[in-house]
């Protein structure tokens, strides 16, 4: 993956004399003092991060944490006070207006919290707006807009006006308008916050699905941690204009950088965030298909297990052998493990969230096998680790499993 966006030491200070305010901050004045004494508000405070191509980078924070200001600095709807933002290696903070407009037209598109559709234009004209600004011919841009409308499921709505659509549909138009210009980067400023919960969930799922095909670089702003954990490849948590922690959802959950982040994640429904790969244990005790039942039996005895997974070449999962079947095989003289192995066993992919494993875990008499798309055995999950994952003892639990 290549580097797409780079933000270095970014500051935004609102007020009559931001430069002076910045100097005072550097001399150690606190943000509160700065606001009270000089009337300058700190929007973004010393923020640095990089975003890879095709990544969904979520910026999470409460209202007033500076997340909307941050995203507007990236397309310079708000001029940063200091710092550097590069897109594809091009420093856009110093770009003259004409060149900035070109970057906005070619690389960036934005989706807004309150949709920000043009009320005097039809849906089709809304979606075609970006192309119109670029100077595309009417017929061509309307054709393109119609195609994009179809991908968001609104193909018959092109001729109506925004106010005739529901909130969810309006935001689909907002998304279509952004996608119509085929941008490299999507800036999404709390796009689903104004929608009711059911529609929000639906939109989140659709975005995830679309992203599989599009592979856009997305900066997604939200105040909802569940949304952040669901969508983000990585998450930056902001407080008072500064980034408190950047990490993958799992890192944020299992290893919060400070009390502020920790207080956020206590309420999270972990079962919908933690994935199979986070709670699985390494399959240390396996038997190869070419080994006989005796080997299997001995290994089970050594480890004190009642069943053991059988793998072929490259650790492909073949099945599971229980201690009873192994004893039986030894007695009857059967030497082929594959004949006594049970192939009908619960398997799951490493990306499955724990929530979806619960039914299988409840019913399964044997551990759940975690396999990749080639059926390579990556790990196993026993019932207790699902439960442990739910109550948030991820790390301790893993070491417990390893020793088991």
């Amino acid at each position, binding site marked *: 993956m290549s580097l797409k966006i780079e933000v270095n030491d970014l500051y935004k200070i609102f007020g009559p004399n931001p430069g002076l305010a910045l100097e005072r901050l550097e001399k150690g004045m606190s943000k509160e003092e700065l606001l009270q004494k000089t009337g300058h508000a700190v929007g973004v405070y010393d923020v640095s991060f990089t975003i890879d191509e095709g990544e969904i980078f979520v910026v999470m924070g409460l209202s007033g944490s500076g997340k909307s200001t941050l995203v507007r600095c990236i397309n310079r709807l708000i001029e940063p006070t200091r710092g550097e933002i590069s897109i594809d290696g091009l420093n856009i903070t110093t770009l003259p207006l004409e060149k900035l407009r070109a970057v906005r037209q070619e690389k960036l598109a934005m989706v807004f919290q309150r949709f920000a559709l*043009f009320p005097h234009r039809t849906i089709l004209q809304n979606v075609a707006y*970006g192309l119109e600004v670029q100077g595309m011919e009417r017929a061509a841009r309307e054709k393109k807009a119609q195609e994009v409308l179809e991908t968001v499921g609104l193909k018959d709505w092109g001729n109506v006006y925004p106010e005739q659509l529901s909130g969810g549909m309006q935001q689909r138009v907002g998304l279509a308008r952004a996608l119509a*210009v085929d941008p490299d980067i999507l800036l999404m400023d709390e796009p689903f916050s104004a929608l009711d919960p059911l529609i929000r969930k639906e939109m989140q799922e659709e975005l995830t699905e679309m992203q599989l095909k599009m592979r856009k670089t997305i900066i997604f702003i939200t105040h909802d941690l569940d949304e952040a954990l669901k969508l983000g490849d990585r998450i930056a948590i902001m407080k008072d204009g500064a980034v408190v922690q950047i990490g993958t959802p799992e890192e944020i959950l299992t290893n919060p950088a400070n009390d502020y982040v920790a207080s956020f994640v206590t309420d999270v429904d972990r079962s919908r965030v933690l994935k199979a790969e986070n709670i699985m244990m390494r399959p240390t005790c396996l038997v190869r298909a070419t080994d006989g039942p005796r080997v299997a039996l001995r290994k089970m005895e050594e480890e004190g297990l009642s069943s053991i997974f059988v793998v072929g070449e490259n650790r492909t999962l073949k099945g599971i052998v229980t201690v009873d079947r192994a004893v039986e095989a030894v007695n009857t003289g059967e030497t082929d493990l594959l004949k006594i192995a049970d192939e009908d066993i619960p398997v799951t992919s490493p990306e499955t969230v724990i929530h979806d494993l619960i039914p299988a875990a409840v019913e399964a008499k044997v551990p759940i096998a975690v396999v990749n798309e080639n059926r390579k055995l990556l790990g196993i999950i026993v019932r207790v680790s699902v439960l442990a994952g739910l109550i948030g003892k991820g790390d301790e639990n893993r070491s417990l499993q390893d020793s088991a």
Partner: protein
Amino acid sequence: MKIEAYKIPLDDWADFTVAFLRDNFRPVFRWFSGIIESFVYGLEDILMMAPEILFILLVAAIAWRLSGRGTAIFSLAGLLLLASMGLWPETMRTMALILTATFIALVIGIPLGILSSHSDVVWRILRPVLDFMQTMPIFVYLLPAVMLFGIGIVPAVIATIVFSMPPAIRLTNLGIRNVPGEVVEAAHSFGSSSFQTLTKVQLPLAMPSIMAGVNQCIMLSLSMVVIAAMIGARGLGGVVYRAITRLEIGSGFEGGVAVVIIAIVLDRITQSMGKEPQKNRGT
């Protein structure tokens, strides 16, 4: 000690300025005067070319199309009444006067309104000027206007412009400033130039407000017709002014009613022009 002793000689300054302009820039004023005069008289000729009945039907048709049946019927009846009172030529003269004044006021006022909506500095400077234009008693600048442009239709047009332009500026400024910030941001985020944002987003969305400004501009122009008549403008104002000075209550009333009829017709038509975008948007 009397404060009077420290008088700032505003009166002398005003005298001096007018005298200075008159003595040094007379050709400029005359030239400008000529342009406006030919504009008004040209428009008068055009308006009077059409037969009255054709004109009345045309206005009624426009009213029907833009505003609906009620206004159309009122326009038809009202204008027929005007014509029957024998005030048709005067009505057309008044129309020529207010249309010229409104046109010039809008040509200056709407760009100024756009400018003030984009710059707080411009707006801070312009606001007291507009207050001045709207509240300064008309005769105070009417007289200097006569001195500079000579008696007749031109100082009347100038005074009308001064009086009627402020609402066009104010409402254009207000309309553009009231366009939701997020919508303007959206336009910018797609790389629109300022001009594209203005023409594709801000002006269309501010249109109802701007049209209200146009409407106010016309209404205020109409309210000036009698004063305009005092300095030599012809038309319905002249009818009323003459009647008043001769104490002819009846014909004064006729002239007054004629002004009201034109006012209502123009008001309804221009108001519905402002509302048109919303009407189309209905389901």
